[in-house]
């Protein structure tokens, strides 16, 4: 049983396409720290990677320390090529200077969730919190196709 909320895309897609409210679902803000376009890939494995763009529009440096997801183990990890095979190794914390962005993206930084008990299907959504030096910031993670390399809204400016 997974505790993260899952909403069907069918219910969400019209909102996202038409209303401002819809956009808010993939944009979260805390004291000038914005987390936009959180996404992951559809999978039936017990592990997945969460990607998100973090923009620090505040006055002070913020440190991304990790993440929280109900019932799941969440770790900040970084990509590395080891002997020709990609591996993700734990990373302690990454600071984001004022006015800067930090992209969690494929073959780079990511949040690794382990302990998934149900498959993630494309179009579903789940909630989790990023842990930062400012406090926790809630993000809505959209499940993209199993072979996606970016958020389906990537490139939009919020």
């Amino acid at each position: 049983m997974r505790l993260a909320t899952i909403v069907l895309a069918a219910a969400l897609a019209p909102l996202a396409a038409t209303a401002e409210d819809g956009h808010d679902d993939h944009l979260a803000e805390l004291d000038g720290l914005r987390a936009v376009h959180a996404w992951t890939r559809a999978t039936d494995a017990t592990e997945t990677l969460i990607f998100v763009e973090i923009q620090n529009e505040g006055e002070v440096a913020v440190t991304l320390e990790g993440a929280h997801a109900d019932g799941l183990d969440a770790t900040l990890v970084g990509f590395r090529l080891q002997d020709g095979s990609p591996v993700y190794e734990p990373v302690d914390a990454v600071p984001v200077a004022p006015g800067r962005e930090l992209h969690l993206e494929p073959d780079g930084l990511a949040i690794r969730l382990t302990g998934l008990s149900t498959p993630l299907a494309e179009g579903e959504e789940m909630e989790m919190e990023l842990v930062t030096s400012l406090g926790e910031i809630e993000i809505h993670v959209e499940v993209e196709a199993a072979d996606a390399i970016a958020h389906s809204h990537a490139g939009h400016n919020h």
Partner: protein
Amino acid sequence: MIDLWLALPAWAQDLAILLALTIVPAIMALLVLRGYAPGALIRAVLRRFGWTNAAFVALIAVSVGLGVGLIAQERGLRQGTAQAADKFDLIVAAPGSEMTMMLASVFLQPSNVALIDGPTYAEIATHPQVRIAAPLAFGDSWEDAPVVGTTGEFARHLSDDRIEGRTWQAWDEAVAGAFVPLAVGDRFLPAHGLGDAAEEGVHADEATIVGRMAPTGTPWDRAILVPVEFVWVTHGLYGGMPPEPSEIGPPFDPERFPGTPAVIVRADELWANYALRSEFTREAETMAFFPGAVLAGLYRVMGDVRQAMSIMALVTQGLVAASVLLGLVILMRLFRRQVALLRALGAPGRFVLAVIWSYGAALIAAGAVMGLGVGWVAAELLSRIVTARTDILVVARLGWPELHLVAGFLCAATVLLIVPAFTVLRQPVVKGLRA
């Protein structure tokens, strides 16, 4: 159960798979041979059709070997290219193709790319988390060796500080890659351009080799590294610089900096690489990328090819197993008479089965083991050819996947072998005696 399996280290999982695949033939052998002593008879049959048997073993060995060699080679190639990119944590360049930029900087494949200007370079170089920010200057060569301008710091980083002699201290000193045919103390005159397009006599300034890097397993082993100022001066690019600069290396004056196609960045901390990548990914200004990530993308594309290759290898092994079994059916007609005789003498069916199965299994096992040898030799040869052609050190060693492939083949073939063995057993005795 699944949790226990996942908790095992990779090597233990691999070993367990190997054992599972080899224990099946072992159990079969135990089942058919239990209580019997057919050794002498099996040896007799092996000797009787010696040449035919040898041809069978060779056929199995070659086909198993090719499968083994190919997958070992593919992995070696992946490891070799990844190893070559190991020293290039992060590359910042003008926006364009990451692949082109990676090929140009890591693998020294020349191409025309846009440049990063002095102020941008200065911003990278002075970033608090950046330890090394090495500009690169391509375009010149000496004989077949590309002459690459950079910083002494990068030369030390690239060679892990293993430099025979020393790094440059003057603008017209150079460090040779491990396989450049120049000795410390030699002087050389770079030509303008690379390969067939190189023009001799354009440059007038000679440089002196003062050091030689230990082998790095990358195309840089065939390059000559010079201070970036040397390239700028010989091309008349470092505006206002006296003909012989007295101070070399960073910091470079942003106003006079003529631009660089790429900056190789080394950060203080692992996490800083990710932060720097985000920071220097700027639309229309710079792109920042991990060569490792570009290679990983390439491997993913190749992964499909690899999967196709693995499936082909599996199908081939399957076909080989099928033809071996078919061949054994035909071969077994040759000793129908011996089989009938054994039955006439009162041998139980399982004994006859034991003789036939052991005979076939001996051929298959010998072929599979020799196949590992053939695969090893094939991978070794291919690696040498690839290394010689690309200067990327490719070492193909036999690993778990190859052992699994061979053990899987052995397992499937010896299990299926029971079918032809049964058909021989079911033939009428009297007909066999008269055969």
